């Protein structure tokens, strides 16, 4: 506005006086005609709503009663809203810094490699997606179940390579005769000696998970001087009688059974047959326990709960940084291209290491560009909304809350309290003003 005013006024000051003072319309007519559409739009879409929101924030839910600053008091006493405000400050502290830093690193590194344009396109690509769509993508990638969530699937591959899941991952003891948590393996709570028969019944194994070669389980005959036994799926449709080996109940082949001596050390081990039977021949006299080692019960990777209340905010931040790093990189790369090369060369000639060149020459020269990125991110982060609502499942929306989301939820998301919603909007507006002022001042000084 001030610029257009000066351009109109400048000639009138510069020209020699014509004698007659020009009338108001001749003086400002053109200005008014050109400004009118913009002013009308601004008035209808910005000025009027702003004033009406400020007024509304002093009224109660119904809009009938003036309640002074009560809405603003609630803003700082309601747990949900306080949470939103703290979260938003956390966003301010973390995100602009990381976006700028990641962008800087990409820009500097990509300057030195071939095909850097291709890499830049890849890094910049997320900017082409709307934040909401990016949120939906990350929401799916963060799924806990490794068969659905990409992030956990990747971790799962590494995890299962280190500790593969056991054959009996979901198995449970069928009766109290079998003891122990799956962590230390299962132990048959019965002293065994040569000539005894051990029965280890397990449940919780899906019929489709039983190996194909399994057949009807049988109780083996006792062996003189040895210990025999059976490991079987102690379940038939309807449940059967736990602990009793019944028709239709199959053996569990390929299970490693240990024979532990009195001190609990594993003395012998063997593997079960298709009918679930196993046999230790030539066992020295003494008392033993039959057990299945913990390894058989090793569960496969269950996934990290990225979307639970503790990790949700960092998880959303990560997605947000992913989106904005491209923008930051492109702006910084442009700034980098404008840096006079001879300064860098001079520093290198003077014996500065690459790190010193980066730290003492490149970064200070880039400072104006870096601050543009940083301040832009401050504003964007203050009003962050869509990515939060897209990623956070309903049950943790409270934990992931930010000011803009709190405003929407309070006004439209069920509470329907337009007064409090307006107060949140005004609060957010007040927070953005100083940063906007800073930005405008910088633009002026650059002009």
């Amino acid at each position, binding site marked *: 506005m001030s610029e257009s005013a000066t351009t109109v006024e400048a000639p009138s000051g510069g020209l020699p006086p014509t004698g007659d003072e020009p009338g108001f319309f001749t003086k400002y007519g053109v200005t008014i005609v050109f400004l009118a559409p913009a002013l009308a739009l601004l008035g209808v879409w910005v000025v009027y709503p702003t004033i009406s929101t400020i007024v509304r924030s002093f009224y109660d839910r119904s809009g009938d009663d003036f309640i002074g600053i009560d809405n603003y008091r609630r803003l700082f006493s309601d747990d949900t809203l306080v949470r939103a405000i703290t979260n938003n400050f956390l966003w301010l502290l973390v995100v602009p810094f990381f976006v700028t830093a990641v962008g800087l690193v990409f820009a500097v590194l990509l300057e030195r490699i071939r095909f850097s344009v291709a890499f830049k396109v890849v890094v910049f690509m997320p900017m082409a997606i709307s934040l909401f769509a990016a949120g939906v993508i990350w929401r799916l990638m963060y799924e806990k179940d490794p068969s659905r969530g990409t992030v956990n699937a990747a971790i799962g591959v590494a995890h299962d390579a280190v500790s593969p899941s056991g054959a009996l991952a979901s198995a449970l003891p069928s009766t109290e005769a079998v003891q122990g948590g799956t962590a230390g393996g299962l132990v048959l709570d019965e002293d065994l000696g040569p000539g005894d028969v051990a029965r280890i019944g397990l449940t919780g194994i899906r019929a489709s998970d039983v190996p194909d070669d399994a057949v009807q389980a049988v109780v083996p005959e006792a062996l003189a001087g040895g210990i025999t036994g059976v490991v079987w799926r102690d379940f038939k449709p309807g449940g059967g009688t736990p602990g009793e080996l019944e028709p239709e109940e199959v053996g569990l082949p390929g299970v490693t059974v240990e024979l532990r001596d009195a001190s609990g050390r594993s003395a012998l081990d063997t593997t079960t047959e298709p009918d679930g039977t196993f046999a230790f021949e030539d066992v020295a006299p003494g008392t033993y326990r039959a057990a299945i080692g913990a390894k058989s019960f090793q569960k496969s990777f269950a996934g990290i709960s990225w979307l639970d209340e503790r990790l949700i905010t960092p998880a959303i931040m990560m997605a947000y940084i992913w989106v904005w790093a491209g923008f930051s990189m492109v702006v910084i790369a442009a700034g980098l291209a404008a840096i006079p090369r001879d300064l860098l060369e001079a520093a290198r000639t003077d014996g500065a290491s690459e790190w010193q060149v980066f730290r003492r020459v490149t970064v200070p020269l880039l400072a104006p560009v870096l601050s543009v990125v940083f301040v832009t991110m401050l504003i964007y982060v203050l009003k962050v909304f869509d990515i939060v609502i897209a990623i956070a499942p*309903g049950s943790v*929306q*409270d934990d992931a809350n930010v000011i803009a989301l709190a405003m929407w939820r309070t006004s439209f998301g069920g509470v329907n309290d*337009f007064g409090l919603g307006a107060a949140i909007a005004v609060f957010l507006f007040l927070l953005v003003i100083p940063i906007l002022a800073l930005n405008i001042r910088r633009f002026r000084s650059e002009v």
Partner: protein
Amino acid sequence: MRKRWLAVASLVGALALAAAGCGGDDDGGGGVEGSEDVTGNISVMAIWSGAEQESFEAVIAGFNELFPNVTVKYTSGGDNLGPLLSTAVQGGNPPDIAAIAQPGLISQFAEQGALQSIDDLRPEIVDNFGEAVADVGAVDGTQYAFLFKGSNKATIWYNVADFEEAGVDPPETWDDLSEVASTLKAAGITPYSVGVDVGWPITDLFENVYIRTAGPEMYDQLAKHEIPWTDQSVKDALTVMQDIFGESDNLAGGTSAALQTDMPASVAKVFSNSPQAAMVIIGDFAPGVVTDNPLEPVTGYNVFTFPSIEGSDPAVVGSGDQFVNFKQSEAATAFLEYLTTPEAAEIWAARGGFSSPNKNVDPETYSDEISRATATGLAEAEVFRFDMSDLQPSAFGGTPGQGLWKEFTDFVQNPDDIDAITQQMESDATKAFANS
């Protein structure tokens, strides 16, 4: 003008009396006599879109056969219907008629004076829907709404193949249900899929348990916050729910996965060829929320009524969309009256995806066995109560991350923490009732 209005009012009154007179007959609660004299344009809003919108437009077509000179324009508000209507009421330009799912929002509008009384239709409503359903639409003794499209929440869905593999039958009592769950677990099948989502599926479960353990009278008292949430009856109901949530491996993927599962995903985990759980406790709308459901009704998936707890009598917790009138006109009154008739409900019932609480709807019109069973369960319920959380001030009973929804999420997470959770419920309820 005024005279004409009076004439219409008395005509409506006479029709209502006639309808009340012949109520209980086999031919239903009396249809509406059409008229070419009624003219006008009315706008209607509801959440229905897609197939539901088509079905509702079929109902409008049925109305237009009787009243050819009334134009009904339907607009779907989708999931944002509540905010849309609130904003429209604030701006002074609501639709003529809307169907609203939250009684709390209806009473809010009624208190703001935004709604027209439909007391004249009350006899028809009672005759078709019964006192209990009619009363849900009344605010301080004035009739403002009636339940057109209901849903029966006292249902549990199961995967037939899983039940056959474990050799179990649908249970009739809570103890049987626990027995079924442990047999399923022994067979290596996870018993329950729960979509904790924002928390409302768990409030539904609580309401079904509470109406059985505490009885309908206490249910009403708790709904109005006449007894505190710290009452022993609430704690007892939560203790019963521990049977389900007490062990993480009762739930598909464990507790932490259940917390992140939304309602449609929880149903999809059961309605699948490789199900991740055998049962999902959710209202009669379950089959509609699964896209590409690979299973056939009855042979693939099926439903049983929420089991009785310690000999409790059958009771139905339900919810649904209630029609309200924002702007009075001859045409709007005629349309509302038509919507109370079994004829209007039967048009949609025949098209599927619809449970009518109208007692006079012929069960034969429902397109399949399962919807016939759940719908008649709703219409013929001797004890019917509206979803309790929907009756609360919305800050307490209907907002993601706040109030009851949040506390039931917390309960799933820490099922042993009953005392702390009920205290939190009580303090939030006190706050919300004071603010509303």
